[in-house]
């Protein structure tokens, strides 16, 4: 039974591509929440629009649809009341648009930390209300609180963590995020497609290729344009190089947080080699603005290809020794094994993507499901483990490095000839949506274009939205000193979440 059959809706929006968008009534909305609560469907996004709230749904059969609830009175039935993964998304909708989730168990703001000049900046703007923020309580004898952040001790992004501990053991940690909220979605509204691509590429700098690709593919879906095959292969090449660089950085940083600096130094070399190759090939170390709607901005020449083959040879020679080093260092394993366990039922319920979900049994990778070109033509495995601990998240990354190396080889072998860009032309109002698998998980981009070539509304959903809450569960009963290790093994994006 399809998603639209299940909710009993026939009112679909014609210009929404590639998946259907249906406007549903109260009964249809409630039926969708039933499916989430029963664990049959996954909530993949929840965002507001002019007098409407949209949800992205992935069914048990991996079918995708967007369901829309019209809320001209500024109220919509809370999803979080029966499906907790929607909680922060609904709080963000209230803070940004002012729409009230009726029946929500948590009415506190999200992203709005009380410093803006306006309330509900994307909806009916009002005067800001500044109330003290109440953290969730923890009760018991001999508990103490440790507030951490927003400014942290290292070179990392800002966020606040409120620990409640009993001695060394964490009883509860609550995240408070939004410090790097830049208002990207408000800057998107009215922007040209070119500027939109630049903004999307800076939602989370470490995933600039993934974001720019998802944005480009959403535009291409909306305008029904297919980029040249060579451009699609080059996007995949950049995406795998981005995954390599980030996984090298993460594997080293996780080990470094367990005081094993040797691994950090070694993976740092591999990361730097990768970034130098990307700069030589695409003119930018992080490949910012290299993926554009319609194709890619830079073609790969013979020199670049040679650089990449050299890089692959070096990585193939050096990386196996680092795996061995990780696997044979008992003092390191002592820190990572059984630390920070994500329960598989939470990974499934929250639809956690990336290495966080895959280390806890959730077999999901946007390159496979829904899948996008050219991955169907390439052969790769999606590694999945069940343990859900820091160690499993390291191993998923290690296995993904191996898969990315193989993918890059395949791409270089099969890179089709031809052009790398197609012009974008908007012939009328249209809507598009796309997923891309960033190194940390699936990015969702949804947008509506006007006939003046400008963006009306664009929503970017980072994988972190469904991963951050699981960090709170993973740290429970671990010691405070292991929090940096757990946090690094998650490496959620602050900027991608805060926007």
């Amino acid at each position, binding site marked *: 039974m399809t998603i639209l059959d299940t909710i009993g809706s026939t009112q679909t929006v014609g210009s929404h591509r590639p998946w259907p968008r249906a406007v549903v009534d109260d009964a249809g909305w409630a039926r969708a929440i039933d499916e989430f609560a029963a664990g049959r469907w996954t909530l993949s996004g929840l965002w507001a629009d002019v007098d409407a709230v949209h949800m992205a749904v992935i069914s048990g059969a991996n079918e995708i649809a967007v369901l829309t609830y019209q809320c001209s009175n500024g109220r919509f039935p809370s999803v979080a009341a029966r499906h907790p993964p929607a909680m922060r998304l609904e709080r963000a909708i209230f803070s940004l648009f002012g729409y009230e989730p009726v029946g929500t168990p948590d009415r506190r703001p999200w992203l709005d*930390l009380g*410093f*803006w*000049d*306006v309330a509900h*900046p994307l909806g009916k703007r009002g005067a800001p209300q500044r109330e003290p923020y109440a953290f969730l309580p923890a009760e018991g004898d001999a508990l103490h609180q440790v507030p951490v952040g*927003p*400014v942290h*001790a*290292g*070179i*990392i*992004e*800002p966020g606040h963590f409120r620990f409640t501990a009993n001695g060394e053991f964490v009883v509860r940690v609550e995240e408070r995020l*939004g*410090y*790097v*909220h*830049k*208002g*990207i979605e*408000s*800057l998107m509204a009215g922007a040209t497609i070119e500027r939109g691509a*630049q*903004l999307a590429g*800076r*939602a*989370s*700098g*470490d995933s*600039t290729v993934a974001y720019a690709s998802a944005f480009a593919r959403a535009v291409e879906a909306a305008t029904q344009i297919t980029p040249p095959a060579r451009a699609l292969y080059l996007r995949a090449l950049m995406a795998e190089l981005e995954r390599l660089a980030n996984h090298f*950085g993460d594997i080293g940083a996780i080990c470094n947080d367990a005081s094993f600096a*040797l691994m950090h*130094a*070694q993976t*740092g*070399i591999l*990361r*730097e080699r990768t*970034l130098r190759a990307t700069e030589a090939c695409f003119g930018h*170390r*992080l490949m*910012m603005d290299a993926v554009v709607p319609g194709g890619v901005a830079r073609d790969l020449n013979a020199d670049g290809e040679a650089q990449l083959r050299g890089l692959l040879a070096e990585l193939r020679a050096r990386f196996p*020794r680092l795996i061995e*080093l990780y696997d*044979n*260092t008992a003092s390191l394993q002592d820190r990572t094994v059984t630390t920070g366990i994500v329960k598989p039922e939470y990974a499934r319920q929250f639809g956690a993507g990336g290495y966080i979900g895959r280390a806890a049994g959730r077999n999901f990778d946007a390159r496979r499901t829904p899948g996008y070109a050219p991955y169907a033509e390439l052969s790769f495995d999606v590694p999945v483990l069940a343990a859900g601990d820091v160690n499993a998240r390291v191993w998923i990354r290690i296995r993904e490095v191996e898969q990315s190396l193989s993918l890059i080889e395949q791409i270089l072998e099969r890179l089709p000839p031809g052009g790398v860009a197609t012009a974008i032309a908007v012939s009328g109002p249209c809507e598009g949506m796309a997923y891309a698998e960033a190194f940390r998980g699936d990015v969702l981009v949804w947008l509506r274009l006007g006939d003046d070539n400008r963006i009306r509304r664009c929503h970017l959903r980072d994988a972190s939205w469904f991963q951050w809450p699981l960090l709170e569960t993973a740290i429970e009963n671990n010691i405070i000193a292991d929090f940096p290790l757990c946090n690094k093994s998650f490496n959620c*994006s*602050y*900027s991608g979440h805060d926007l």
Partner: protein
Amino acid sequence: MRRSLIEGLTTGALTEPAPQPDEAALAELAQSTNRAARTRLGRSLSIRHVDAGSCNGCELELHALSNAFYDLERFGLRFVASPRHADVLTVTGPVTRNMREALLRTYDAMPDPKWVLAIGGCARGGGLFAGSYAVVGGVSDVIPVDLHIDGCPPSPTALLRGLLALLQRQDGSAV
């Protein structure tokens, strides 16, 4: 592990020669650095970093400064955990309204004399994010800035050139 360590001793170092300090940076610093402050510190600086709203791209390149190729610490430069220990504050991003207060408090927690490096295109006036309801603007809209290092993000070499300019300016050996 032993093999990696021995190989590290027997093969040549990956660390590259220091780049020349940035001339433009020296000129900008010439106007802001106080001669008295310069003489009070040795040729060593402790750096505290604050992300005031960055996309995290600049952070990636700041991290790269510590890898084997750039080896920041050979210049006497190191990142420290507390603003109380820091001589230099590096700030990235457009300053968001949500981070303004935290940035000010970090700056105020640093002892004098102190320098501020605004890193990346966004740190100069807000960049791509200027004009948003959630953004104050550039770093200099909140605290005094001694040096801007442009780029989106600036490469580790560009960062190093800026930091070396600060060092030279500070021990009076240049300009």
